[in-house]
């Protein structure tokens, strides 16, 4: 089935089913879609060869931008806060991109990690931002409407699902566009791309900004959904988890990171409930099993074909 109509149907089903879903699952899915969007950005970067161990920089920036907007500037509209989070991260990504896209492989990974840790360090030491405790956000409003708390959760779920699936549609379009396929070509042969007349740096910069924007939107959504933010959002283990879920999901399709994140959040939720002291071990074994049996990620269950540009 074609990807965009399939995603549209999935969105309609997810929105239509909202009243039927128990509240605990509504919250879990909201966070999963928000983080899935961040992972989608990580995947788009990985397709171009940029593996970031510091995506929590933009995730944290998006969340804190939304938090600051809500607490200090009186912006409570969820949609505006999401745009604010995405916008701030996009701008930061654009500025830092000038430096970042000149590095590759481990140098790129470590430099991105270092930048995220600088943000973490600043947040931890900022008493005005609650230091390690962070701070709470007021309940979000929707285009002037102030819902009761329960309806509020469902509306944030709807917003997260719409943003995640809407972004997946846009990014599906991107990976089939000239710039998207050229970004895949860069993964294997940069010098040839230059010798065809295209700037590798410009394409990678674009991909980097896409990743930063997705992370900022996801961070803002998590901040609105949880009603609380703290510096752990920008901590390096958060970045590691995003890469973990990206590998677990596979880079073959835009739906893969969303499905992978939902599955990861479910496994984590149950693992924490049933094995509160060893849940990380459960996650670790799940990752080992995936690397052994599905090295191309969960998506390879649905598509056994080798990935080629334009057909993914």
């Amino acid at each position, binding site marked *: 089935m074609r990807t965009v109509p399939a995603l549209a149907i999935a969105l309609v089903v997810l929105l239509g089913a909202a009243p039927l879903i128990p509240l605990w699952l509504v919250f879990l899915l909201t966070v999963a879609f928000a983080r899935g969007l961040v992972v989608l950005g990580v995947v788009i970067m990985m397709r171009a060869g940029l593996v970031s161990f510091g995506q929590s920089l933009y995730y944290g920036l998006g969340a804190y931008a939304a938090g600051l907007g809500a607490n200090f500037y009186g912006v409570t509209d969820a949609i505006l806060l999401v745009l604010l989070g995405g916008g701030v991260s996009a701008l930061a990504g654009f500025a830092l991109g000038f430096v970042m896209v000149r590095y590759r492989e481990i140098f790129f990974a470590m430099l991105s990690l270092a930048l995220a840790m600088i943000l973490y360090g600043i947040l931890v030491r900022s008493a005005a931002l609650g230091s390690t405790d962070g701070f709470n956000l007021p309940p979000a409003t929707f285009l002037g409407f102030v819902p009761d708390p329960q309806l509020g959760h469902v509306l944030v779920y709807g917003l997260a699902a719409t943003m995640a699936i809407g972004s997946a549609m846009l990014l599906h*379009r*991107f990976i*089939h*566009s*000239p*710039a*998207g*396929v*050229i970004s*895949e*070509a860069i*993964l*294997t*042969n940069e*010098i*040839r*791309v*230059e*010798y*065809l*007349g*295209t*700037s590798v740096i*410009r*394409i990678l910069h*674009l991909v980097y900004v896409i990743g930063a924007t997705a992370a900022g939107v996801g961070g803002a959504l998590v901040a609105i959904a949880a009603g609380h933010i703290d510096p752990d959002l920008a901590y390096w283990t958060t970045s590691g988890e995003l890469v973990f879920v990206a590998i677990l999901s596979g880079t073959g399709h835009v739906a893969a990171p969303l499905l992978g994140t939902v599955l990861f959040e479910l496994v984590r939720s149950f693992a924490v409930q049933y094995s509160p002291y060893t849940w990380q071990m459960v996650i670790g074994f799940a990752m080992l099993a995936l690397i052994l049996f599905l090295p191309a990620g969960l998506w390879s269950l649905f598509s056994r074909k*080798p*990935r*080629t*540009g*334009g057909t993914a």
Partner: protein
Amino acid sequence: MTEPLISTRNLNKRFGAVVAADDVTLAIAQDETVGIIGANGAGKTTFLNIVTGYLKPDSGLVLFRGLDITQKSPREVTRLGIRRSFQVAQLFPNLSARDNLLVALASAESEWPTLSAILRTPARLAKAEEILADLKIGHAAERLVPELPQGQRKLLDIALAMMGNLALLLFDEPTSGISAQEKFPLMDRVMGATAERSATVVFIEHDMEIVERYARRVIAFYDGRIIADGLPDAVLANADVRRYVVGAELHRRGERPHS
């Protein structure tokens, strides 16, 4: 005399003690077909790398239609219509043969590749089919690069170079790694396709049979210097060329040079 398409003035390039270009001055006119010969390390590929902006000379100039392009990057040089293939085919192994060509086409069309439209438009697909058919590798369109035999990879690499506006085509050893039976059919296809696109061609070649058959002018390099330049018969008969280039080539192939 009309302005040459490409010319170099006193190019010098050293890598430590190795002299890769020693006062190289030459001019190539529109529509010429030039073969560059020389033993390994004579400076042939260095010359190509300097012309295409990959290497910067220690001194000297590269002029394209009178414009100084010495300090331009490979991307800027490519956008002027100076396109090249490589001794070892430089392709995108994660993409199919057709997608390799579509990437080349999209790159040639615009310096700022678009985000909004899809890559696989009917117009681009038709152009890709055309070049694949011209080079007789249409059957390989759907295959990933690692699945292609060596000869088809070389042809695909050459096809990538032929996308977009063409003024000068530079081929680095188009028949290296190709069997003796395949080399003439391969060159026939390549030269046929370049003639259709009326491009000026410069190719580096070790195989003297290929040089004799396809070049209209031959330039011989030795130790970074041009030791002979002219019609193929004259250059290949030149005593220095026989001693330093042709002899070395025959020696390389395990044959004795003619006395």
